């Protein structure tokens, strides 16, 4: 942007937002140029901090008229470079929009703004609505709940209730021309109770990474909280044992949650910064299982059933250890609470000195899990990286998440380049097995497009063009 043009834009934005909500100083721009990942940084030209839907609307209308790119961002904790302002322009920081607008305990939803964090939701429910529960992602407490929902992320209840896009009853969205629109029941009546029987237009704003509008409110489902919960780890010694354990659990209807963690995570918790060696007798996976009920007898039955599944597998010679109660494991080694207290504290992933964290996160078929996880773990190990994998069956086992996580030194450009190549290598390893990246980094989207049905690309392209004809919204993030 030319200096004069930038100054004019800045003045107009100050008129809308006020002096303290528009920033152009070098230090601030630098802060907004990158994230934890290996993706190349880019500076925005202006950072703004709207506090209301009306302000977002006026800013987008202004940007649209001027043809200036707008990148919406909350806490910048995605691992895909999705809020890096590739084309400069305006960086719209939504963290000041942080109200929990409504909690409706009877209709089981809450309405939240983008800046509401996992900790905010957790604390409010604990304090004021102990009969309700919500799911929390594999992320620290101070990340945006709304962003995880519209990027179709997952939480610790996604095995039962699906990816977070499914939890949305409706959205308030500011379209790229500044118009404010609601989807779901709130488009018709004064209630956010659901999307059916209306057309499911939430989808226009899910997995589109801010390229179709800025979501300023989301109605997210809450669930009754059962009185009793039991949690276990089952340690599995090889791929086949782990797969049998996972599918045994899916078929049993025991769990609320199944989480599969590969062996390096246990060692990271003990402070080993780069675990590369696995004792052959060591478990390959920690399978986390939680079960709940309002009736103690049901919980007891579920736990007994879990024990039976394990016994059956052991009877078949599978390398499965008897279930370890999570509380017991935490009593022996308190750092295991990092994995089981929600929202999680992820110090062991975030505080490794190099500050770099990246992943390839994918959704794919359960039937190909063994091949997918094996291919990815062996690939990482061959390339000198700890084979860190976090996996979770979703939506009753209709699909499964496979996430390969890498920690690296962000200040080392050579290492960042190597990590880029490894992420692309992982993509190639798992895409053929049906594992499609979610929270999709732009580089992965570009690789994905080549594999997409051209008619599907054409449809997505026409949706994108009709909503954002000036192509100002988060350029490069939905590269169709």
């Amino acid at each position: 942007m030319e200096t004069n043009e930038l100054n004019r834009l800045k003045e107009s934005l100050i008129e809308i937002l006020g002096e303290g909500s528009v920033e152009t100083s070098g230090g601030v721009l630098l802060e907004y140029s990158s994230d934890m990942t290996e993706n190349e940084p880019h500076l925005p030209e202006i950072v703004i901090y709207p506090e209301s839907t009306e302000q977002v609307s006026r800013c987008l209308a202004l940007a649209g008229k001027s043809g200036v790119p707008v990148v919406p961002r909350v806490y910048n904790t995605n691992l895909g470079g999705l809020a890096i302002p590739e084309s400069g322009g305006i960086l719209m920081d939504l963290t000041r929009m942080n109200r929990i607008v409504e909690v409706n305990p009877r209709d089981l939803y809450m309405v939240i703004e983008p800046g509401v964090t996992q900790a905010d939701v957790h604390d409010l429910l604990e304090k004021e609505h102990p009969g309700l529960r919500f799911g929390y992602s594999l992320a620290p407490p101070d990340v945006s709940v709304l962003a995880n929902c519209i990027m179709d992320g997952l939480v610790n209840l996604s095995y039962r209730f699906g990816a977070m896009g499914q939890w949305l009853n409706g959205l308030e969205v500011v379209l790229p021309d500044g118009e404010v629109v609601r989807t779901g029941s709130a488009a018709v009546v004064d209630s956010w109770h659901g999307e059916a029987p209306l057309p499911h237009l939430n989808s226009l704003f899910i997995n589109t990474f801010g390229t179709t509008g800025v979501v300023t409110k989301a109605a997210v489902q809450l669930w009754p909280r059962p009185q009793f919960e039991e949690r276990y780890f089952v340690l599995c010694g090889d791929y086949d044992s782990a797969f049998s354990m996972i599918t045994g659990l899916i078929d049993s209807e025991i769990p609320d949650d199944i989480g599969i963690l590969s062996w390096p995570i246990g060692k990271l918790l003990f402070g080993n910064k780069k675990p590369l060696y696995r004792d052959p007798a060591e478990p390959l996976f920690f399978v986390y299982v939680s079960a709940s009920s309002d009736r103690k007898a049901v919980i007891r039955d579920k736990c007994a059933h879990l024990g039976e599944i394990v016994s059956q597998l052991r009877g078949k010679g599978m390398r499965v250890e008897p279930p370890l109660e999570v509380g017991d494991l935490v009593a022996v080694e308190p750092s295991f609470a990092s994995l089981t207290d929600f929202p999680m504290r992820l110090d062991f992933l975030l505080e490794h000195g190099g500050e770099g964290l990246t992943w390839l996160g994918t959704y794919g078929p359960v039937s190909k899990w063994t091949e997918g996880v094996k291919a990815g773990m062996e690939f990482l190990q061959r390339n000198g990286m700890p084979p860190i994998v976090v996996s979770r069956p979703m939506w009753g086992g209709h699909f499964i998440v496979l996430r390969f996580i890498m920690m690296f030194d962000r200040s080392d450009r050579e290492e960042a380049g190597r990590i880029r190549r490894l992420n692309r290598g992982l993509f190639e390893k798992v895409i053929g097995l049906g594992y499609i990246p979610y929270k999709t980094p732009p580089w992965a989207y570009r690789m994905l497009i080549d594999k997409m049905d051209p008619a599907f690309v054409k449809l997505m392209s026409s949706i994108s063009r009709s909503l954002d004809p000036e192509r100002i919204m988060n350029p490069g993030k939905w590269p169709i």
Partner: protein
Amino acid sequence: MSDELTVRVVEEERANLVCYFLASVLRRNVESRSPVQLAGNIESGLKVVAGGMTAFVYGVRDVIEVSPIERGATAVGVEGELGVLLGVLLGGGVVIPVLKGDIKVKGSPLRALRVLKLFRTPGKRKGRTGSYK
């Protein structure tokens, strides 16, 4: 032995979960029990095999070392499933698992019982771990 005692995992690049579990409990026990008593009992060396993973524990002057690799003779050896070991670490009884054969002992059983008691988690919590078979 002095009153200042540290616990460390050696040969860490090859350390397994059992090494880490034992070291973690010992570290906390160093704070809550007499270091002299702790180290004195381990001085002659202990071999633990749990769930197929092996760890060796040696008291060496002011340091208790937990190693995945044998670094000297061990007077006592114990072997069992990981869940059974964790049951002991959690403060569960030692005598019954030994008598039932869930924990197999090499060397003096009395000495083994005394040594195993050193690995009980402070503020013990007796859960159900190890009870599902």
